[in-house]
């Protein structure tokens, strides 16, 4: 019955495919990016919220990033 509600839209099947393909690309890029990150960097970043509880860094540029 739903088919009677709207007229067929030209090429509409492509939208589903385009959206899935786009997601695949974005998701793959995110995965590749995430898995290329070094463990040390991930560890530093993961601890960032805890860093503001520490004393000020000893010297310029030494803290908070590799």
């Amino acid at each position, binding site marked *: 019955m739903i088919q009677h509600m709207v007229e067929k839209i030209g090429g509409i099947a492509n*939208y*589903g495919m385009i959206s899935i393909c786009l*997601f695949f690309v974005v998701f793959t890029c*995110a995965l590749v990016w*995430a898995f290329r990150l070094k463990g040390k960097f991930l560890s530093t970043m993961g601890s960032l*919220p805890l860093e503001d509880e520490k004393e000020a860094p000893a*010297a*310029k540029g030494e*803290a908070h*990033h590799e």
Partner: protein
Amino acid sequence: MNAAATDVQTVKEPAKQEQRVSGIETFKYDNKIVRAFAIATVIWGIVGMSAGLLAAVQLFFPAANLNLQFVTFGRLRPLHTNAVIFAFVGNGMFMGIYYSLQRLCRARMFSDSLSWLNFWGWNAIIVSAAITLPLGFTSSKEYAELEWPIDIAIAVIWVTFTVNLIGTILKRREKHLYVAIWFYIATALTVAMLHIVNSLEIPVTMWKSYSVYAGVQDALVQWWYGHNAVAFFLTTPYLGLMYYFLPKAANRPVFSYRLSIIHFWALIFIYIWAGPHHLLYTALPEWAQSLGMVFSVMLVAPSWGGMLNGLLTLRGAWDKVRQDPMLKFMVVAVTAYGMATLEGPTLAIKSVNSLSHYTDWTIAHVHTGALGWNGFLTFSMLYYLFPRLYNTKLWSTRLANYHFWIALLGMMFYIVPMYWSGITQGMMWKQFTKDGFLQYPNFLETVIQIIPMYRLRAIGGSLYLIGAWIMAFNLWKTARSGVFSPDTEAQAAVAIPSHTEKKRWSHRALEAKPMLLTSLAFGAVAIGGLLEIVPMIVVKENVPTIASVRPYSSLELLGRDIYIREGCVGCHSQMIRPLRSETERYGEYSKAGEFVYDHPFLWGSKRTGPDLHRIGGKYPDAWHYNHLDDPRSTSPGSIMPRYPWLLTQKLETNSLPARIGALRKVGVPYPTGYEAKALAELKAQQAKVVLNLKVGSVTSDPDAEIIALIAYLQRLGTDIRATPTAAPAPQKTAQVAQPIQNTN
């Protein structure tokens, strides 16, 4: 709790300057703005929950509105939802962001002036909502009910917040952006996009406008907005806050930072597509429904990735959960997030949705998110922040524990009856006898059945509200026992400029380039929106026109605006799905072409009362009159409120020409010069309705508002039964068509 001993030094005087000594800069975090948002979220939380409780009580005791139009369910419901979403959660979100952003960026907010403009502007908007919604000034679009002047104010204040957010990020001392900040960026950009697109409307008067979209298009844009308001206002900022406050509370880093990256990109990309799941089995084209369903199911993966990442952060720290009420609230919040994000995709499956949609199951679902996820996370942040802002310990850990258990019990007493109620409704609506007739043909039977659940729900809501009062008292005592620090002094090294580092195309490099990250995040959400909206415009040209569908007459138009003002859409849908249980009960299923002049659409999202799309001609005018005056007189046991003011208030016709002109601008084919004869036509139709009422022994002033509302109700869904005029089918462009008058 160990209070703000964590920071380098706390000082009372506001910071004016930043000092720099041998690469180390000393600066001050702004605590005053955090405190302001914290107090606001407590106050508005209590107000919003109280409005919800009053609305809940009216569903089993309709007289609780005291026959006052301003606090009747239809007007109260949007007040409750707006207060909870934008006032309680909104202020809670700003509180958490203003606190965590400064510390994660190691910088004071970009501009104190913008911070305070954000605070006062946002709360002025909330006050204006609290005034205008009870007065009936509403666009009727869920979670976007506020009228056009307030919509503009929201856009301005949101831009203020965004500038302050981006400005702070740009002046940060921490080179890399922690994942919480990405969620804040996605929130700022997407909410702006959603709000502006969905709020496009043509003003008629100071407090009245019409959506530029109609029918199916309006429905798709609205639920693209509505769903993503949940996604990007209630979820992404709170996920960012979870990623900040949970590690702080557990005193250990997030379980997997890598997972948080995947969580972020997958979540923001998928979420934006899922809106059409609110419109399954409706007159929305099937391709859009399928798209919404598929992406909704996919949404489970990133949502649960984030939820597990949160819970696993507590590995080895579960002993703390037993002692720290802040962590208790946090654990339940994250668990509720997991429950809601498993349930949401389940409800988005068409076969499940055919049962659940329009029932209280949806109410249970959203309250798992609102009470559990947003509420508990906000309470958790408040218990964390107050002792730190006031340099003291929490006044009473025992009271906080009481709050936790009362709120948890309240949440259970709320959602379990609503699940029961929703499933009961869905089953009863669909139940057929062995002879093939509806088992419960009278809708009222299905309402009376669930009233005990409504009573239980109100008990649950009361408990939750009591818990919030206990928290407010505890926080107030905490504040009284400590000394507030307007600023917190901190030190940080100057960040190394990104151009001094070897250029790399990696996520690590991306995190050091906020504008690029912002652009990519915006691209991820904009593509999804674009690919749904562009076809929507195509759909506009493809909605089959129905020759007999004509614009509303002048009286019906004003009646429709009264229907919008009273919030009837809060309980009555106008969308009969192509399911046998619905066509048997209500009549012919709704066609997309029937709504081409509906600015805005009024399909609704729940059926506390029956669907009204085919109500036209079903009952005599006098029945509607008596029913609106006192629903119990025609439908014993009904929980619909009385509308006595409609019998006495005069219909406002001065703005009729402006209303017709505005609708013409958005494509309704009223003939040129129709304004000149609209009033005479209106009077003639009023006289007909009054005559019909006399048949039913009812005498009424023709200028009473109820006459217009009856005219509108009698028109509903009748166009497909009308004979097409000789003129060609109305097109939404240049052609004109005569409004038809109902011959009741």
